[in-house]
């Protein structure tokens, strides 16, 4: 041990400050978060193997997605927060531009126009906003006096509404709401006065009736009606909910055993390897499996909250809070949807559902979270 090291470890010296400067923090990795993510992705692969019909093909591809995802996460984590704060508006502007482009030259599927075709590579610009929105709003508000004043609140709302409306036009209600939410939560965390919150909620409730009749599309209304009464159309719209509830319920406490879920293995469960994968888990591993997964999620969320709480810079705090809460919303909406509490909206279960695009966005978010976590001591 060198003298310098010794001195550094003396009581009352700068050890308390320096102890964060470990190997992991130097490479900008939050170790607890990494361990939790590895556990989640591992668990996800096990469930996916069964949900994909015991086909190794899905596992291979998903493992590749994970590998790419972790690389992206490590890369993003290296970015200097100040740098991100300075330039994130570019991402926002680019995202909004592409969203506008989608409406003009986008590629459609199932009555919605969501993709841009970049020479064989299909790309959904709304994914950009999933990151750009929390970044930009955090940047904007962190540079204002907090709690925000009316003028800043108004401008924030404009920033939130522009991309949301563009996505709504595609139409993609689910994503639009999620992205708007990721911006609004920053506003809330920054200290938005309660009186505004309460009046906004009142306004939303009052406008619910006209929205139902004049704004929502038929398929969106069907989804909500199906949720309220799935038995009405057993083979049609209600099929997904009935089958997923049956899968979950028949799993019981201990489950039917891995690869033995009849609902999942006999194809009664739709989208079993993507949006409805938690039903496979619930059927084969029972309530125990579900609680395990929820436990892992709770630990991840807790870690996220801790990072947000201990970050010293307003921008980092707001960003970490928004990312953590967004993750929670994904988890809640997906599980709520599959278990029949919420309407069926296309939201994947983070780290478990099969699919590359959403995973990549998610990993980028965690990259940001790690950047916040490891740079908190470097700010004045």
């Amino acid at each position: 041990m060198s003298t310098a090291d010794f001195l550094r470890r003396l009581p009352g010296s700068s050890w308390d400050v320096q102890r964060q400067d470990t190997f992991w923090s130097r490479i900008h990795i939050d170790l607890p978060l990494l361990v939790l993510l590895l556990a989640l992705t591992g668990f996800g692969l096990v469930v996916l193997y069964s949900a994909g019909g015991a086909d190794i093909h899905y596992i291979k591809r998903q493992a590749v997605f994970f590998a790419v995802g972790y690389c992206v996460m490590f890369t993003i984590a290296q970015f200097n927060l100040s740098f991100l704060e300075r330039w994130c508006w570019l991402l926002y502007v680019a995202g909004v531009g592409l969203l506008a482009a989608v409406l003009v030259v986008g590629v459609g599927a199932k009555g919605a126009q969501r993709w841009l075709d970049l020479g064989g590579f299909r790309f959904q610009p709304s994914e950009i906003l999933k990151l750009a929105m929390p970044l930009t709003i955090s940047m904007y508000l962190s540079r204002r006096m907090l709690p925000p004043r009316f003028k800043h609140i108004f401008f924030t709302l404009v920033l939130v509404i522009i991309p949301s409306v563009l996505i709504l036009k595609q139409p993609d209600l689910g994503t639009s709401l999620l992205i708007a939410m990721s911006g609004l939560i920053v506003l809330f965390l920054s200290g938005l006065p309660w009186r505004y919150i309460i009046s906004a909620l009142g306004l939303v409730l009052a406008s619910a009736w006209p929205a139902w009749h004049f704004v929502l599309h038929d398929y969106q209304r069907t989804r909500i009606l199906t949720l309220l009464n799935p038995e009405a159309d057993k083979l049609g719209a209600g099929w997904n909910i009935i089958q997923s509830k049956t899968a979950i319920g028949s799993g019981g406490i201990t489950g039917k055993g891995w690869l033995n879920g009849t609902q999942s293995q006999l194809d009664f469960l739709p989208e079993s390897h993507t949006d409805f994968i938690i039903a496979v888990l619930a059927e084969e591993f029972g309530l125990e499996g579900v609680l395990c997964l929820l436990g892992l999620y709770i630990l991840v969320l807790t870690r996220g909250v801790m990072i947000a709480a201990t970050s010293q810079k307003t921008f980092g705090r707001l960003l970490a809070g928004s990312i953590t809460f967004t993750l929670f919303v994904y988890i809640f909406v997906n599980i709520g949807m599959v278990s029949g509490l919420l309407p069926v909206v296309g939201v994947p279960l983070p780290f478990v559902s099969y699919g590359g695009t959403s995973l990549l966005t998610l990993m980028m978010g965690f990259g940001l979270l790690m950047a916040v976590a490891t740079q908190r001591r470097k700010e004045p």
Partner: protein
Amino acid sequence: MSEQQTLKDHFREARIFRNRLFVIALFMIVLLSILVVRFYSLQVVHYNDYVTQSERNRVHVRPLAPTRGLIYDRNGILLADNRASYTLSIVKERVGNLDETLQVLSELVEFDEGDVEKFHSRLKQRRRPFEAVPLRYQLTPEEIARVAVNEYRLEGVEVDAQLVRHYPMADLYAHTVGYVGRINERELRSFSEEEYKRYSGTYTIGKIGLERQYEDLLLGKVGFENVETNARGRVLRVLEQTPPEPGENLHLYFDSQVQRAGLEALNGRRGAIVAIEIETGGILAMVSSPSYDPNLFVTGISHSDYNRLTGSRDLPLFNRAIQGEYPPGSTIKPMVALGGLYHRVVDPNVAIYDPGFYQLDNEERKYRDWKKGGHGRVDMNSAIRESCDTYYYDLAYRSGIDRLHEFGSQFGLGDYTGIDLPSERKGIWPSRTWKRQNRGLPWFPGDTLNVGIGQGDVLATPLQLAEMTATLANRGKRIQPRIAQNVDPVVADSADSKMLLDVADGHWNYIFNAMSEVMHHPRGTAYRVGRDMSFKMAGKSGTAQVVGIAQDEEYDSDALSERNRDHALFVGFAPLNNPKIAVAVIVENGEGGSSEAAPVVRKVVETYLAIEEEKARQQISSDKNPTEKQQELPGVNG
């Protein structure tokens, strides 16, 4: 901007942020708790409900169709069997776009407009949900392979092996064996709960003939299996099985050689043949001509074929043998004569003079004999031999309608024979009561005269005439005509209890002799047919008017259109001394009973007796050589 930053109160911001974060964390905890409660509710509280539902999802009960019983003739020749056939069917509920699927299929499998039309009409019929509707039968192995390869774009299309009823004899037994056809809407509606279950695996039902008569026996018992299916209804494995029980086989009295000989002897003319084995009452042959191919109906007949059959003036679908009601004409004369002897109203040896007509005492009207100028002096024997009408006008008049009616009824006239076939008709054997009820008129003496020669209101089916002849040959012992051997008679009072006539042997012999002279006496009406026969046969010709001939008109064959000419009839039994077979034949518009119908009777009788003789010879040789016995007598009941 930098100005603002200097004014920022970092501690206050951090405090506000922590408060808000606390609210958020609380919010997350609440919502996550809701999720946990939700899963607890689904997986613990309602566990049993969902387990039941998932089992119901997965396990389906599938009916297993029983194999329909086969039908054999008396020598074990197959008259109806089941052929494995690969059927292309479509489950409409699983097909996205039916037209598109049909389009794809048309590239793989040959089928024409007619098939598609039939498919659509089957589709319209009421059926069980998810029941496959056949599009084409009898796929070739090549077609099966082509469909299999393209399975991925043919959701809802199935190729399955089915047993399809087949009638190898084609038109030979169309009217008697009948056919099965697809269960139609009306039948499905009329099913009871129990029947609905019995037919759950079966698509066809006996429509006419024996197939309908013995439907219950032939059908068998449906089996069931529990299968595990996936969401698309594809069966993955069988969990439990109750095998079906095949239907009973039917063994008939028919002899296909006799049947074939009869059909060929009719040679396409409209007519019918019924041949009864006297010892058993078994029907040896029952022909209705023209016939048709019952195989057309099994998988659904095309419109053009159906129109051709129903539109034909020859009525091929009509079973003349049991549904055709014809005036029996002179064929009933031996029976009438026997009645006269029995009631002792005439002395057979006392001759009367026939001037060619008969007149009642107080009537102007002349009842003509068929022979212009009359037969001169005739006794009973020559009156049968030469079919003298005048003698029978007199005899009928002396007997009176009441005795005539009662006597004739004992031969089965005017009543159902009770044969094991559906849709039998019973003809008319008139009486005073009958006339009052049906015509609203009293009985006139002239009516009696017409009954005496089998004209007027008298109608009988060929089967009734054959039964009458068989009863005659059996010396008054009524026999119960039957087609199936292994089935208990449906009629409660057995043939023995119908043994009724206490006629003296001498009277029987007298009638038999007279009937034999019809064939073998040079003046017999059928001498030309009977003269070179190797055995003795009893017979009687008949000619039945189709249109009434006015008093002063004469029957002129050339002036009448072909369809208005007289029907030719002939009944007979053989051998004379030990009757084994009784036959009745009608040739519609054939004019001469002896010339047209008698050769057909002879052919049938000869064919049957030759077979019997052959059997007897084999019996003798195998008696000498007992080891061969087993092989040479195929077990008919087996």
